[in-house]
């Protein structure tokens, strides 16, 4: 059984009696251990799709299931519980809280899940070592660099050992060096079995995934699978698809 299934997802926003179709008809499945990148231009519906998967938004119609659990039917309270237990988030602007030091930022989802302090420490130790953030745990988010912040944010996302890691433009605010090391980290955790779904419009970022979906005007327009290709060949294909997408726009 696939980990995540979306069937005919549709999302309509009503604004001043005007209807805006953000997602027309999206169907996709994600297997456990998969690494999916979703690409598309601004306004294509990428973020709406991510929000629906993250239970932060609800589809107007269609079904969405994670491990057989229908996400559309979750109450607000259960959705919150679901987010902190099953999902991990990495945001473009990190969304770390300045009121907490880095350690407490990472602990936040565990505290909300009412885990014991002992458990928190045990989980953090190997993770912090892997992410190379052990030395900055006692500092505050505003005291560290962007790359470090994103690694702290990644630690916060991974510490709950989520079923699914959701990333929204994770490299958007990073320089190329920090972006590369974050993506290497993603590769690493994916190799360990972590399922990742990320939204990006950087072809390089997408080239780390196993599968790339292109969204346009609220539908999945095209799909690329990496298979046995090396990264540069895969990147070339992604760039090619993007160019094709853009030129089609020019022609039409």
């Amino acid at each position, binding site marked *: 059984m696939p980990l995540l299934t979306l069937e005919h997802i549709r999302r309509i926003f009503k604004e001043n009696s005007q209807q805006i179709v953000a997602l027309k008809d999206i169907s996709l499945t994600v297997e456990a251990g998969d690494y999916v990148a979703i690409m598309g231009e601004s306004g294509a519906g990428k973020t709406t799709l991510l929000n629906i998967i*993250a239970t*932060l938004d609800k589809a107007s119609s269609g079904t969405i299931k994670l491990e057989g659990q229908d996400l559309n039917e979750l109450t*607000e*309270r259960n*959705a*919150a*519980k*679901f*987010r*902190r*237990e099953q*999902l991990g*988030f990495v*945001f473009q602007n990190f*969304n770390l*809280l*300045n*009121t*907490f030091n880095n350690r*407490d930022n990472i*602990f*936040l*989802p565990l*505290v*909300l*899940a*009412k885990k014991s*302090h002992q458990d*928190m420490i045990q989980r953090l130790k190997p993770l912090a070592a892997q992410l190379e953030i052990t030395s900055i745990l006692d500092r*505050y*988010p*505003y*005291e560290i660099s962007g790359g470090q912040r994103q690694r702290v944010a990644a630690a*916060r996302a991974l510490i709950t050992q989520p079923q699914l890691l959701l990333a929204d433009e994770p490299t958007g605010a990073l320089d190329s060096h920090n972006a590369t090391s974050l993506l290497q980290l993603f590769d690493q955790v994916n190799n360990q079995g972590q399922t990742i779904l990320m939204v990006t419009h950087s072809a390089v970022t997408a080239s780390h995934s196993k599968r790339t979906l292109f969204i346009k005007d609220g539908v999945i327009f095209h799909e690329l699978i990496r298979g046995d290709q090396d990264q540069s060949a895969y990147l070339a294909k992604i760039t090619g698809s993007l160019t094709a997408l853009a030129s089609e726009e020019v022609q039409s």
Partner: protein
Amino acid sequence: MIHWKLASHSLTHHGRENGLFVLASSVLIAINYIFWNLLANHSLKQSMNGDILINIIGIGLVFVVMIAVIFMFYVNSFLMKRRNQELGLYNMLGLTRNDLRIILIIENVCLYLVSLIIGFVLGMTFVKLAFLVLQRLLADYRIKETFSMSAVVIVTMIFGLTFVAILAYDFLRIRQIRPVDLWKLSEKGEQEPKSRWLTGMIGVILLGSGYFIAVTTKPNAGSILRFMIAVILVVMGTYLVFITGSIIFLKFLKSKPAFYYQPNHFISISGMLYRMKQNGAGLASICLLCTSILVTIIATTSLFVGEQNLVQLWNPYDIITTTPQPISQQMRSRTAQIAKQTDVKMSSRRQYRMTTPTAGNLKADRFVKNESSKTSHQLGTLTISEYNQVQGTHRQLTGNHLLIYTPDNSYRNHWITLNGKKYPVKVIHHFKMAVNYQHSIFQPVYVITANERLAQQINPTPWLYLQGFNLSGSKQNQKRFSFILQQTLHLQNTELSSKVIQQALFKSLFGGFLFVGILISITMSLATALIIYYKQVSEGIADAKRFQTMQQVGLSQAESKKAIHSQVLLVFMLPIVGAVIHLGFAFPAIRSVLTIFSMYNLKLLMTVSAATIALLVACYLGVYWLTTTVYQRLVNRS
């Protein structure tokens, strides 16, 4: 034209903040108008004891003007924080500083004019109510409300000057605006406050010594200065303790993982610690305002409620004369004549003589003569036969055994040292004709001896002859009676005490105190409520993003509601708890001050205090509930 547009955009767009500012300043204008109107009122000035009342109102006025000016600046700083961002943006988009100044002038003039209009409408409506209340409190219905142009002019000027000062302050702020800072604003994180043990300790020491002075000071003429020192120490101590003490306390909580790592505690402790430095000062201000409200209301209400008590204490009989010469037969017949002439009936006449009271201090086991700023008592002696005659009892005293009476029944010892000699003493709880000699601020002490020789030995002063009797007849006639009596018998003001006249005096004195106390308390309550509101709103805006992130990570709305409540409640309870503690230590001082007015009724004071605290807490929780709702709306809006 663009200036008008931008100014009106800013005024309407931030309707709530500006609305509150207008509300606050118009209520302050209204209260100021009421005070100035009272001050200018002729019927009030010409009423009985009108000049005393005008004086009390004058003192209250100074307070109200001070609160108004300070508070307008405080509220303005909130408006300015938001404006700074906007003005910085305009600046970046190409408006010069001069343009910004014009926008600010337009905004402030609009706010001023609207506040002024609403304020005067409110003031002129409520001044009618104020006069109704005043008539009631003073029991004088000849006082009439009149329109006062001078009050309007003065208030317009005071607030005009305040607005100009605020504008000048805003101009200074504008000079510091740098558009570049706008970009940095979101990036820059606030520093976690450092706990400063030293300042914390100093705060505790200041607070402690302020408390100590307040508790140990005895009421006498010199105590005013000591009380002032105590107040200043407590004010400074409160600020330091709230700022540093709360940080130390929160850090302590944070250092306990089992406590800290629970959803509610985790969110609220870190949130409070994050802004405790700026919070501490606000909370201390709320605490001090609450304390002032409590003290004002308790003191003035006790005085007003205790008025009957006091009159009874000072005038156990309707008329009391205290003369250095014996009451002659001629005097008695003249008195009877005047009674007939003024149509009043005299009854239950009593008379006795005592030694002229000596000033000093009554300690736990002795009375020490002393006439200075530290004096708190005055002691007089009389014989047991005089006492029995007045009281209608048949008590016996032998040898150097004594009886002692104080109106507050405070003496407990079985021995007393007087003039260097030790006497066995028994406390008595009743003396019908205990009077406060010369209506001084000293508490009377009566010592009853077996014979005249001992009475003179203990208090070697000339004899004083007292007589007291009751009157029946209309109040007007009673007043005329005492008036003519004083003139005919050539009595000094201190030699005649008339209950009806004193009643009228206390009515206007305490009624005036209570009235001014209520008005000042309303002003301070309003200031407190608005400080709380602005605090909550500014924090709600700051916290909105924080809660949004936490909800993304898995905090449900119900849980955020709980966290908000536990955070806000803790923040809210601190000042009110602080205020009640302050009151606890101010209590002896209030009691002391009230004894100056011969009020020894502890039960009354306790009842009034309990009722006042209950009322304040109820109002406070009301404000809490209202502002939390606003806070929640702000946080959950995203």
